[in-house]
């Protein structure tokens, strides 16, 4: 019943202060998420790992109120499905990351609000282990 990350290499794990792992182009300095091997701006293949800020501002958002088509969606469906928020959070003034939001209530979400990274349970895998993913919640 040990928690496991939804994928290797997208956030630091295990970690008390988890961070998303992106990459930065050593030629033009653009920051991507997740890591990618070549630069989408200058086509350089010299990319280095780059940890992203844990807090940022909400740039755009919506809600996901129906279970996405499965596959590829691997989370709870039917009665077990719980609507979730989705948005882009701008981190460190250098990248906007698309992410789950812990809040799905339109009344509680506003463009520009301060958000912070958390790890949340997503589903149980075949071994009964809890699969963890990243999400952003409104910061205190």
């Amino acid at each position: 019943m040990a928690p496991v990350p939804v994928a290797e290499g997208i956030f630091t794990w295990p970690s008390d202060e988890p961070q998303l792992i992106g990459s930065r182009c050593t030629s033009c300095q653009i920051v991507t998420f997740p890591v990618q091997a070549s630069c989408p701006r200058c086509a350089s293949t010299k990319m280095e790992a780059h940890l992203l800020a844990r807090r940022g501002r909400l740039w755009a958002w919506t809600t996901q109120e129906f279970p996405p088509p499965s596959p590829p969606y691997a989370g709870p469906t039917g009665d077990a499905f719980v609507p979730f928020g989705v948005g882009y959070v701008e981190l460190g003034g250098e990248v906007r990351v698309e992410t789950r939001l812990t809040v799905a209530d339109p009344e509680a979400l506003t463009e520009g609000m301060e958000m912070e990274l958390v790890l949340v349970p997503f589903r149980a895998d075949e071994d009964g282990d809890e699969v963890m993913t990243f999400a952003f919640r409104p910061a205190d």
Partner: protein
Amino acid sequence: MDVAIVGVGLHPFGRFPGVSGIEMGAIAIRRALADAGVEWRDIEFAFGGSYEVDNPDAVVALLGLTGLPFTDVYNGCATAASALTLAADTIRLGDHGLGIAVGMDKHLPGAFSADPRQYACPLWYGELGQFVTTKFFGMKINKYMQDHGISHSTLAKVVAKNLRNGALNENAFRRKPMTEEAILGSPMLNYPLTQYMFCSPDEGAAAVVLCRAEDARRYTDKPIYLRATTVRTRRLGAFEVHSPWLPVEETVGPTVDASRAAFERAGLGPEDVDVVQLQDADAGAEIIHLAENGFCCDGDQEALVADGALEIGGSLPVNTDGGLLANGEPIGASGLRQVHEVVRQLRGQAGDRQVPGNPKVGYTQLYGAPGTAGVSILSR
């Protein structure tokens, strides 16, 4: 060399159990041939677009094995624009004088899905439930509404208009008008978009016969000239569907690029256009695309919709055949359905939904994943 459209044909859009995509394509082609007054054996080349049908060229088995060069294309929601562009370019090259562009599709109900890795996205992005086109549309219009003062009731008014137009179109999928209240009150799918603010993947086919402009009057006394067709993909910084991240630097989307290039090639501007077909995969897309194609400034849509400007009898008629909201979206056929409608409008053959005032210039626009847009401009 200029290119003219001399024939258009449509298989109705909707759901047709027992009829294959290829069969629908053959029916659309036969109708386009009849409209142009030509035979299948006269057609010198073809381009066929589809998402579900691997090999649209197999339609020759239903029409005649004449040996013509027949090339299949797929370019997401801009598939039909690509087929049309390639067909027009083939005539411009001078290799052939008379050809056809056809699109056909037969989708299952429900939101589109795919393997995210085919879109250069990581698998976990799909596993988490973020590889969803409707979510992007919700996010884009939600941001647009907050930034530019568009109301929820304007979204509902766009749907109501397109369903009213669809009710006048015997080829449309949804032909039953709905009230704004019922549209706003249907289940929320991706805030602020409710169920009836989205189009449905469905079935249908459309075909267009093209020739050298100088030959057009051999076939018709009402040739419609293809003044420009363009296809563009996203640039870094555009806010696009299926993007696990975006850079902080921002630029305009591929629709803006395709639109500007098309107007430049045609030597026309938005003020010259009399009838418009826009990609309204959701109500928000019609609102945003009005500005992205240069027909208004950001935020003007609120007043344009309230004043009825986008109605068939308005100053800027948009989606006169009901658009995607009333017709659904068989991906391969959708853009040629738009061209079919514009041709009918410019010929004065649109019946109950004819735009008054003898329209002279028409415009069509497609947009889809992963950030591809197509525009065409047509005139009498």
